[in-house]
């Protein structure tokens, strides 16, 4: 006789797999309709309407899935309340933990595309945090419930949590962007929802088996790790295949669909694999081959949970070390009596008359330069700089001057702004702001400069760190 915990473990729910595939197809159909409206009607949305329509469209994938689940619930009673609750919990955990950590604490988006190493580290962090949100929602909010008693329950609850997390991510995307373009916005929303639903379904399968069978302590952690890797691989692959577009002439209205097809394919594949695995498990249970949960299952669950949390913590630690290494690493230099360290993410330019010229040309456009001028008069060199910049820029002005200390020496710190020359019509002139430190070094004046966009406060912090690292050879 089966234990009470596994009483319904051999119940098959083939309709569920059909429902999963139906929702994928329905979502594709909905996206196609939205794109068609975008192409043929060309709705000119702006302001609050753009935001409102974006918010409604962001809710569609999750609501579609829940609606279909509700309709099926009328045929074969299911705890729709629990499913809806997992959706909300997934959204709440995603909003309270996942998004703040990824966007605000780690600012993954800002450094993700620096190079292949940051892409890998960023994707791993995204995968770990996405997966942990789903895991935490299911493990801590439904796993111990008596309602979690069928093999498909893990998949159902995992999918609901994944869709909840995706929905909050999509709402955040819409709100942060002030709305989204009608067609491309919905493609993105559907892409995120399908991918998260797939990851939720996969992790849910492992959770279901951990609950209803006697599995080794590493089983759940293996499922978690696999989901993290799949999520990270999805982000890496999507990053490779979904690139921006450069079109000569007017842009077309058909958005890129590669990411959506990738996510849709992933959802179908995961659904198919998980359905095969669940049906195989059910057959095994019916034939008496499955191992029912042990008498001390609760204790085993706790230990397995600790292993998952430990794996998550380890992945997070690896990601954080990688993040710290890539974003805060410094490169030492020694040039003509000036020693210091500049950010490793900056690239060194060997041209020019500068002692050192490093730049972050593709991310912030920020440049640090160290130059030497003959003479011992700071005011004269400041005037020389003004003449040089005044000749090349449309406008140059020193906005602030004050005494400072650099490398143990008295220095002059000046803040400046200039308007770069460029095209005469068609664009707003670019305003560049910068800081100079001027200090006397024997018979020369060393000038350390920051040249950055007007609003890049982050560059200023990095520059001050760079200045603090400088020392002059005696």
């Amino acid at each position, binding site marked *: 006789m089966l234990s009470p915990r596994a009483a319904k473990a051999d119940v098959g729910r083939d309709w569920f797999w059909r429902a999963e595939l139906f929702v994928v197809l329905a979502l594709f159909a909905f996206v196609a309709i939205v794109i068609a409206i975008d192409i043929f009607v060309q709705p000119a949305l702006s302001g609050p309407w753009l935001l409102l329509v974006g918010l409604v469209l962001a809710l569609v994938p999750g609501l579609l899935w829940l609606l279909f689940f509700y309709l099926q619930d009328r045929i074969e009673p299911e705890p729709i309340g629990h499913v809806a609750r997992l959706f909300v919990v997934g959204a709440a955990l995603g909003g309270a933990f996942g998004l703040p950590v990824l966007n605000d604490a780690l600012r993954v*988006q*800002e450094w993700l*595309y620096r190079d292949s190493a940051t892409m890998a580290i960023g994707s791993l962090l995204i995968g770990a945090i996405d997966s942990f949100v789903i895991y935490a929602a299911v493990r801590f909010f439904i796993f111990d419930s008596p309602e979690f008693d069928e093999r498909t329950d893990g998949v159902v609850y995992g999918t609901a949590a994944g869709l909840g997390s995706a929905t909050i991510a999509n709402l955040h*995307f819409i709100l942060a*962007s*002030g*709305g*989204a*373009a009608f067609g*491309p*916005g919905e*493609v*993105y929303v559907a892409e995120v929802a399908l991918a998260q639903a797939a990851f939720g379904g996969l992790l849910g399968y492992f959770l279901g088996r951990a609950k209803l069978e006697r599995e080794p302590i590493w089983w759940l952690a293996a499922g978690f790790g696999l989901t993290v890797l799949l999520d990270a691989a999805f982000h890496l692959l999507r*990053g490779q295949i*979904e*690139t*921006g*577009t*450069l*079109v*000569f*002439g*007017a*842009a077309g209205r058909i*958005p*890129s669909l590669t990411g959506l097809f990738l996510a849709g394919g992933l959802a179908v594949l995961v659904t198919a694999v998980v359905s095969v695995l669940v049906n195989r498990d059910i057959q095994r249970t019916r034939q008496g081959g499955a191992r029912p949960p042990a008498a001390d299952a609760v204790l085993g669950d706790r230990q397995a949970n600790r292993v998952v949390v430990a794996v998550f913590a380890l992945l997070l630690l690896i990601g954080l070390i990688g993040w710290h290494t890539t974003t805060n690493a410094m490169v030492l230099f020694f040039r003509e009596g000036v020693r210091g360290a500049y950010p490793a993410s900056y*690239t*060194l*330019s*060997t*041209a*020019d008359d500068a002692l050192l010229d490093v*730049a972050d*040309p*593709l*991310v*912030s*456009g920020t440049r640090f330069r160290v130059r030497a001028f003959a003479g011992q008069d700071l005011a004269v060199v400041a005037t020389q700089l003004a003449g040089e910049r005044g000749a090349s820029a449309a406008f140059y002005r020193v906005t602030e001057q004050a005494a400072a200390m650099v490398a143990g020496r008295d220095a002059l710190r000046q803040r400046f702004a200039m308007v*770069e*020359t*460029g*095209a*005469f*019509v*068609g*664009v*707003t*002139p*670019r305003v560049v702001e910068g800081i100079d430190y001027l200090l006397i070094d024997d018979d020369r004046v060393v000038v350390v400069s920051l040249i950055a*966009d007007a609003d890049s406060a982050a560059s200023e912090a990095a520059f001050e760190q760079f200045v603090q690292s400088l020392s002059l050879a005696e």
Partner: protein
Amino acid sequence: MPFKFAALLGLILACSVATVAAASPALAFTGQMLLLNGPAQQSACTTMKATSDAYWLETDDVGEVTDQVVESYPSGTTTIAAAFDYNCLPKGATIVTVFALDGEVVFSNKAPQKPASRAGIYSYTLSREDGAEIPAGEWEVAFFNNKTLLASGTITVGGDAAQGLSDAIVVKGTIVDAKTKQPIRNALVVLLNEGIDAETYLNDPQDSDVYTSATTDARGKFVLAEPVERTAEHTWIIAAKGYKPIVEDALVIGDGAEDPLDLAIAMTK
């Protein structure tokens, strides 16, 4: 662009010799404004709007303007003429015309206008004070009503001399977020010199490797500082904070592209 109101003309409201405000002392320019009114409008005029981009008109050997729109001026041209269509002239309208050569302002004129509730064409001709040839290069014009930009446009003077050797065109564009279509500010567009690929540049970014570049404004718009030859193979790098960089190695504009070439660039996160 057809000279839409040519058949309705007949009334020249004002014709005045402009003041000269040459930025380059070596090249002194003089200008002449021509205002052509269209049919009367029913409603009173409150706001002046351009109903066309700025366009350029053919000039003959003696500097007279015709009604033929041109896409470039040949070498030896002594007069160029820019124009735009407008809806009406409200009270207090002052049209400021600014000409630039290769990005540097060389002439400006400020002309107060009498109010008129009818649409029309505002045209401005430019020539050298000494009657010499207009210098070859990329010319730009901007028409303002006081400080509000009404219309602007570009044209090549002397492009025929360079035809086949350096058929360069002005490249401008807009960079937006692919998902939201919102403009991306401070995005960077870099064209490397021929023969320099992206990897070489990114490993050791030298200013001397850059053929031309531009940064987008708050509307996501940019205009490359240098014209680009149609047949040249440049590596294009487009980057913005938080977005996947776009790298196109050995991209050729081709003979079929319009001048100026308008690019639509969409970046993804």
